[in-house]
Every structure is written in C-alpha cells, then in structure tokens.
C-alpha cells in the first residue's frame, strides 16, 4: 500500500471518528443554478407555437400596420413587401384559389422565378413569433405586442388574405390560419428527422427508410461517364483569383482566374528590405524588442533634420542613446538602402 493511500485511509478514519463528512460523489448538483422567477420566464418565454400557445393578448389594424411598416419595415422590404433589393420578397405568387385549397399552385412550376414568404409559410404563428422576436432587423424586440399584430395585419392584407379594414387580434388570428395560402403545403413524410425514438415517430408520416441511396457497385457500374453539367464560363472568375485561395506549396496550385487582389496587399518594399537586412530581429514598429521601436525613433527625430545623421548611425552603429545595448555597425548595408530605411522609419514604418 502506498504512503498516500495509507494517509487517505487514516484521514478518513479520523474523519469518521470526528464526524467529518467524507467527500462522496454527489447525487445532484448542489448550488448549481437557481430557480427562475416568474418575471424572468415571462421576459424570455416569448415563443408562439402553431397552436397559438404563448400568443399574447392584443390587436392591430391594417391601417395602423401600414404606418409602422412605412416607418420601420419598408426600407428593407419595400412599401408593398415586394422588395428584392435588400431582402427576398415577402408577398406575391399566391392566388385566391390557393387560399381555398391551402396549396400554392405556383410551387409546382419549375419556371416560377422566386419563392416569397407567403408562398412558403404554412403557419401564421410563425410570422407573429418571428416579427416579435427579431424585427426590425436593426432593433429587434422593439415593437409592442399590438404593433406586431398591426404589422402582421398589414402584411396579411398585402397578401390579400385579409381585407383593408381588418383588425387582427389574438382571437381572429385563428381564422386567418384557415386562409393561409400554403397551409397544407408542408409534409413530414421523410426520413430526415430522427425516427428511432422508442415512443414512436415524432411526426405523422415520418419514416425511417431514407428516400435516396445508391448501390455499392465496384466494377463496370455503367457503360460510360457522361458530363451533365460544367462550370459556366461566367462563373469561372466570379469568385476572384482562385490562385490566391490555395497554398503556394503542395501537390497542387490554384488556377489563376482573376486579377491579383494581393497587389494592393503587397508589403512595402522598405519593409521587405528591413526584413532582408535583419533589422527586424532587434526592432519592431511599436514595441521595444532589443532596440527601440521605430515609432519611438520617429517620435524622437520627427521635425528635426536628422535623416543624414541617422543614416551614419545605422551604418556605423552606436550606443548610449537608447540604453546600454549597442547597435552593431551595418557594414553590409549600402548607403542608399540605409537612406531608404531611415526615410521609411521616420515616415512611421508603414507595412504597405
């Protein structure tokens, strides 16, 4: 038995005699977290479900909604919810017949140009919930519950689901659900939701068997390989210069597909010269490494006619000005290069 084991045993024996509580595995997490207060839950629990659980009481008219819309929503969504300039259109693509059937017919058309929010959304609760929690985009949660009803009333009016004089309330919103153009347009008959819950499937119609798949064929799987699609020419350079998006070593390089964006990014030639000449082993722009920082040097000599003196100092070396560590003479450096470096340092040692 190890000494520490003996010590532990001894300690626990003494603990037992003296009535200490030996540390044991907890069966709960004492003092971790605290009960939420009713006010806290009320402040954060703002979700509204498809069955309207959580829907606050309130009301708003189409005309009030239009006022709020023009002030807070139209800049992104367009006056009539049609905007395609900042965000996708909210309204359009639905018909009176869709309101009857609950299926947006245009969704079957492959040539239909876009899908608006009202072509997709099946549940009006989604719109109330989302506007209340996230809109306006730059000031989320700033609308009152009544304002949210009003904005939603205006949107429903734009979508021709409710008339101009409509008042949307926590009661009438249930009628609106029955007029949502795509209310029957959703299906959960797929295998993309976990379905091995022993309590049974979570959604009606959901299945365990995937709808797609493949055979693990290994040889002569098909007579030939035909290309169905290739990158369109206009897309080739649409993502900038791919050469600059790949590594400069390794088995491959990126293809050059555009102008070299790195040009503007190229380091200053004087910085490269400082690197080559070994200056940066002892100096940095604004921190003291071994010698003074370039910003300290620039500050000390700024406005003084000292460039020539500094060139001599760089060439010949020196000590005492910045402390005890001497700067060695830079005999390999040409006078011209020294001038370039001094001018660069006095100008603030820019990186580019």
């Amino acid at each position, binding site marked *: 038995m190890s000494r520490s084991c003996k010590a532990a045993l001894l300690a626990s024996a003494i603990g037992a005699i003296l009535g200490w509580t030996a540390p044991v595995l907890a069966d709960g997490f004492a003092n*971790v*977290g605290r009960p939420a207060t009713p006010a806290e839950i009320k402040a954060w629990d703002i979700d509204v479900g498809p069955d309207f659980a959580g829907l606050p009481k309130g009301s708003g008219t189409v005309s009030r909604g239009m006022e709020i819309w023009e002030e807070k929503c139209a800049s992104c969504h367009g006056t009539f919810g049609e905007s395609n300039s900042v965000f996708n259109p909210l309204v359009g693509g639905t018909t009176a017949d869709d309101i009857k059937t609950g299926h947006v017919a245009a969704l*079957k058309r492959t040539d239909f140009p876009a899908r608006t929010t009202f072509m997709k959304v099946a549940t009006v609760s989604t719109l109330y919930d989302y506007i209340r929690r996230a809109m306006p985009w730059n000031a989320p949660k700033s609308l009152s519950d009544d304002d949210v009803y009003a904005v939603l009333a205006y949107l429903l009016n734009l979508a021709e689901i409710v008339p101009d004089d409509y008042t949307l309330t926590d009661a009438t919103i249930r009628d609106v659900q029955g007029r949502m153009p795509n209310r029957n347009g959703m299906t959960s008959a797929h295998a*993309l939701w976990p379905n091995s819950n022993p309590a049974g499937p*979570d*959604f009606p119609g959901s299945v365990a068997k995937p709808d797609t798949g493949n055979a693990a064929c290994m040889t002569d799987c098909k007579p*030939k390989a035909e290309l169905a699609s*290739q990158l369109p020419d206009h897309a080739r350079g649409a993502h900038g210069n791919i050469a600059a998006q790949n*590594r400069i070593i390794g088995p491959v390089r990126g293809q050059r597909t555009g102008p070299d964006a790195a040009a503007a990014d190229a380091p200053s030639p004087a910085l490269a010269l400082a690197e080559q000449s070994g200056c940066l082993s002892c100096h940095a722009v604004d921190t003291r490494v071994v010698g003074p920082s370039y910003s300290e040097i620039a500050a000390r000599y700024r406005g003084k006619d000292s460039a020539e003196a500094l060139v001599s100092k760089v060439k010949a070396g020196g000590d005492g000005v910045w402390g005890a560590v001497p700067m060695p003479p830079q005999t390999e450096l040409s006078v011209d290069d020294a001038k370039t470096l001094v001018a660069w340092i006095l100008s603030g040692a820019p990186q580019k």
Partner: protein
Amino acid sequence: MTKLRPTGEATPRTDPLVPGADTLSGRLRRAPENFLTADDIRQVGQGRRDFLRASFLAAAGATAAATLSGRAAAASPAGAGGDPDILNPTPWGSSLGLPVAANPYGLPSKHERGLVRRQSPGLTQVPAASVSFAPLQGLFGIITPSGLHFERHHQGWQDIDPTRHRLMVNGARPEFVKTPKVYTMDDIMRLPPVSRMHFIECGANTGMEWGNVAVPTVQYTHGMLSCSEFTGVPLRTLLEDCGADLKAAKFVLAEGGDGSSMTRTIPIELVLSGEVMVAYGQNGEMLRPENGYPLRLVVPGVQGVSWVKWLRRIEVGDRPYATKDEAVHYIDLMPDGQHRQYTSIQECKSVITSPSGGQTLLDKGYFTISGLAWSGRGAVKRVDVSVDGGINWTQATLQTPVLSKCLTRFTLPWNWDGRPALLQSRATDETGFVQPAYGQLRAVRGTRSIYHNNAIQTWQVAESGDVNNVQIL
C-alpha cells in the same frame, strides 16, 4: 499593436500572392486548348486539325520559358551546381528570429494567408445575414481550425459578455419542468464536462449545385462544413437537474440570445441519448464569438441551423414549434410542390478535397487523393473512390479516428498518367446507406430543394492538370 511580418524570408521570388509571380508554377506544359480563342475552337470543330497542331507548336514555344520559371522548376538543380536555396545562405538561416510572444495569440504563417473564410459573391444580399465558407481545399485531417470554421449568421454576430450570459430552462407548460432554472456560465462550467468531436454542416451546404454546376471550388461547393472538438454538458443533465418530465417531453426548443433570438425545434431522441450538449469549449479554448461564444447547442448529425448559437433558453414541450427557420427557410421543396418540414439529419456524404475544383496538378505521377466523409446517422463505414467518373471504384483508406457524426478523412494513392480523369468519392455509413449520385438524388427530390444535397461530387482532371467542377448523373 502594429505587427511586422515575421522574419524568415525575403520577398519570395515566385510567391503567387505577390504580383508578377508565376502562379501556375507546375512543370506541366499548358495544353494547347488553353491558347485557343472561341473562334479557334470553332475552326477546330469544323475539322481544321492542322490549325490545332500549329497552335500547339506556337503555344509550346511561347510558354516554355514561363513554365520553367516556376517554383517547382526552380527547385531542380539545373543551374550552376545546384539549388540556390541550398548553395546560398537563406535569410532565415543567417539572421536572428523574432522573440517569444511576438504574437501573444499565435497567427498562421504569412504564406498561408490565402487560406481564409470567404463569401460567395452574390449568394446573399447583406453580410450580416450571410455565409462564409471554410477553405476545405487546404485543410488536413478532420479538425477545422477555429478561425476557419464556417460562419452563418441570421442577424449578425455578437461578442457576448460571458459574465452576463444566462441559460434558462423552462417548460412550455408548468408540468413539463418541475423547477425552471437559470444557469450562469459559472454554473454550467462547474458541471461534469464531456468533450466530443463532431461535424457541423449547414443544411444548405452544396445547395447552389442542386440544378447545375455553379461555383468553382470545394470551398464554395462544400465549405459550409466544419468539425471541432466541443466541450460542454449534455443537455439531458440540465433537464434532469430541473426535474424535466422526460416522458411527457416530445420536443425541445432552443433559443439564441442575439438579436434574432433564433429558435429551432430539437429532436428529443437526441437529447435523451445524451448526444445533444450545451457547449462552451471548441478545440480546447472557448467558442469563438462567431460560433456562439459563450454557449451554443451541439446537435450531432443535425444541420447547423439547429446548433443554436449564443444559447439563452431551452424550453421543454410536446409539440413542434414551426419557427421561422423551420417554416419559411430550411424547408425542402419537392417536385410535387410540397415542402418537407423538419428535415434535420445530414445524410451520408463525402467530397475529395485534394485535388479539387480550381486547382492544377503540379505534374504527372504520384498524388494522394484525399477527402472528407461524414454521416449524420453515425460513423462512416467505407469510402470508395473512382477516377473514371463512377464506372469503376476502389476502396479508400480511412484515417483514424473514425467517429460517429464526425468528419472522417480518407485517402487513396493515385498515379496520374496525364490523361483526363473524373474523380469521385462515394461514402457508406454504418446504417448501410450509400451516398447517391446526382441522378438518383434528383429523381426523388428534383432540383429545387436547396437543402440536403449530398450527391456524389465529380472533379474533372484535364490533360493540362487543371481540375474543374463538373456533374455526372
């Protein structure tokens, strides 16, 4: 603090990131096709083969000098006695390097600055509700460096003060949770932690390619994919701590604390299994703010939108919530005009990342085909690779570890003989599901789904060595 670039190299002579350098520095001579105009090609198409031959000779003459000036050529000891980088002192071998902690939080080499997150131009209209893609073409292994993890924000990202962040657990009705509770980060980080590696993939990853090839590189076709080691607490632990009725509970709502307060319905099955966790750690450090600092949900195998960032609330309920991101977006349009709702699982998928679209092979000869495979239903069982567009397949090697709902790296040695090739990978997961081809996927789901495109990706290798994005049904 302004930082100088680290020492070590003078201005590189053939750095493609420096203007004027020769980017396509391989030893391969460019194929003559690359020097033909559209008009030239038409003439060739009309039978003027002699024109092609003449063009090839001219092109070969004109470019011989250029192709030899590349880096790969420079490394060959053709000059006076050998490689100048061996014969002459290097700047980094003959000078003092930088001191410790010059970068208190370390940075990648300046030579790696091309490998960054990038946006796809025109994909979204505002950068605060957009996507940045991870540079899969340059990543190794299975872990995504945290700074390169893809981003998807719905209302911008926030850097939340962690001392003021709270997580609330409550019930849709009082009977679902005995004691609704509030946890601080102190509380959550006191609880027993687990660390697990999982992939996260946006449901719309590869979404631009449903109908046809649209983007040039794997960064844009597949870059809404990342993989990290996450550290946190199983959500089940918190629910039990609050006395949640896990028999009555059928769904859980997760809600973010940012401006969008994004909400998603989470499958209870994955909560009960212990897989869903509230995570604060990512790759050994705290989450990055863009990835939900200080707390996010991790829902292994499920699309990224469910991994709610800046997580502030969990609600236990008995019916799905039809939130904006499961009723307006993240719904999959089928050919019959119906939208699939609550599609969540990311089915088995794979992609070759090297060589991949937009790249050029340096030379004929040996290459390692390397890529990533993953499945939202468990572990990857095998990956097959084809170099002839799916006629014949060879089983690839899976690098360890091979973990459930985690990226798996596969490799296959390949000698490229210089002839055109069509590279594909096909993954099979532990359920036996085999990744479909585009034809098989479209036959069921059409081309307008946007979400959950897990089709087999094809990269076409041309004689020039150029690798391009193509599709095979």
